[in-house]
């Protein structure tokens, strides 16, 4: 077929952690103040300490598991927030008015896992932001969630391609099955970069212009050489952040993305 390996890797997102239910009367405000001031002190300490943590594969998976198992987040909840982050990052890096081509077409290539699901949500939000996304989704999982996300895109008149479109630009190297991606003008990736090892990267792999790290960056992001590195997926509970010492930066205002470079 295309000879292209799954272009997006495993999705991340997921957190959960144990916490206690507090019920109180009368002194509600004082108790709340104690809880919140403890977290504020921690965040202040974080900003003074090391920079943001880059996760290994195992750690990323543990965080995922905790988000679902302990914090009771659902995949579709977090995927919605992750996809929104991705679309927002794309619109910051490549604002509508800056695009050379009209209409403002974007190709969203979705793999078979959660990362592909993030891509579907991203495509839907890009459409609402005024872009013209098309989706290439060669291997669709049978899980209801992915079918639902696909329907949502289709009903928004987002076209689904049946094959990878030809790219006009001549690739630098003649690596057949990757040349299509290489030729695209800008490539932005969510999660970790396809065909890269989560921790070690890959010098021969795709070199995206933008990387959107979800939840926290992965070790492979140390090898990222593109222009834009965004952090997205603003849903990590403070306690989980503390547990894994993620040292996440403070997102600006209510933004769901934070530019790391």
């Amino acid at each position, binding site marked *: 077929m295309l000879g292209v390996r799954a272009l997006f890797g495993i999705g991340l997102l997921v957190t959960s952690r144990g916490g206690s239910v507090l019920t109180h009367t009368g002194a509600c405000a004082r108790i*709340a103040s104690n809880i919140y001031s403890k977290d504020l002190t921690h965040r202040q300490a974080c900003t003074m300490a090391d920079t943001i943590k880059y996760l290994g594969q195992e750690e990323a998976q543990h965080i995922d598991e905790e988000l679902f198992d302990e*914090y009771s987040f659902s995949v579709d909840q977090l995927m919605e927030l992750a996809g929104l982050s991705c679309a927002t990052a794309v619109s910051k890096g490549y604002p509508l008015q800056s695009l050379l081509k009209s209409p403002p077409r974007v190709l969203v290539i979705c793999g078979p896992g959660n990362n592909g699901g993030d891509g579907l949500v991203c495509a839907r939000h890009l459409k609402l932001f005024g872009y013209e996304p098309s989706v290439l989704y060669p291997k669709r999982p049978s899980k209801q969630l992915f079918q639902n996300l696909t329907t949502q895109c289709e009903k928004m008149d987002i076209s689904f391609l049946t094959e990878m479109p030809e790219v006009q630009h001549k690739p630098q190297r003649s690596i057949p099955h990757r040349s299509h991606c290489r030729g695209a003008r800008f490539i932005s990736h969510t999660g970790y970069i396809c065909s890269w090892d989560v921790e070690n990267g890959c010098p021969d792999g795709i070199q995206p212009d933008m990387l959107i790290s979800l939840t926290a960056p992965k070790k492979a992001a140390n090898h990222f050489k593109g222009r834009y590195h965004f952090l997205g997926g603003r849903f990590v509970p403070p306690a989980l952040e503390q547990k894994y010492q993620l040292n996440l930066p403070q997102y600006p205002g209510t933004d769901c993305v934070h530019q790391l470079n």
Partner: protein
Amino acid sequence: MIYLSSQANTMHVMSSVSMRFVSLSVFYSKTEVATVETELLRDYHFGQQQLIEIWGHACAIAITKAFPLSSLSKKQPTLLVVCGPEQNGSIGLVCARHLRMFEYEPTIFYPKRSPQSLHQDFTVQCEKMDIPFLSYLPTEVQLLNDAYNLVIDAILGPETDHKEVKEPYAGMLVTLKQVKIPIVSVDVPSGCDVDEPAKDGINPEVLISLTAPKKCATGFSGKHFLAGRFLPYDIQKKYELNLPEFPGTECVIEL
């Protein structure tokens, strides 16, 4: 200064600050709300948790616009989120969680928890974020005025029959009507008839309409936001919603 005129079902809003003309041609009735939601779930395959997440997130953003952290008068950015038993309450829970992420200090009062696991998940998520839950709502209004900067009314939504407000909600509404601190209502002011201009229920300072404004928002004189940017264009056309254009990547717009 906002100039309002109404003409049949059309409300024209002009803001002298931006000189932007926002014309809304439809205010949803209760039946239309239910129809659209059914279509979103049945035909568009949105998930209920997904929609509640979208609404709750957008609500939280609207609240930060109406009451930025720097504008709060009390030393701590406290606020009370009062959650009812159905969808409106769950939206309140998600809103509280996002407000927490935005560095506010929400406390939740959620007296009757929904038995549905879908809604229970939202509770656990808040608990695990260390958001305190009150075990009762004080009837001494001064306690609320002193402790919180504002109250988020996520008690009763368009799905509730305003004529049959049972306890503990009837009592809660009596208390909340007396607070001196601002109230922000999620979607509809609790206790109001969705299809009539609001009169008997909570009288909020800020109303956050979700997806599209309801009929009870006609003539609302406080700050009015539209929150939730996800509605497929087909549905907007079908119901002739004529929603305003959200700026940039915003999911909230002030009406």
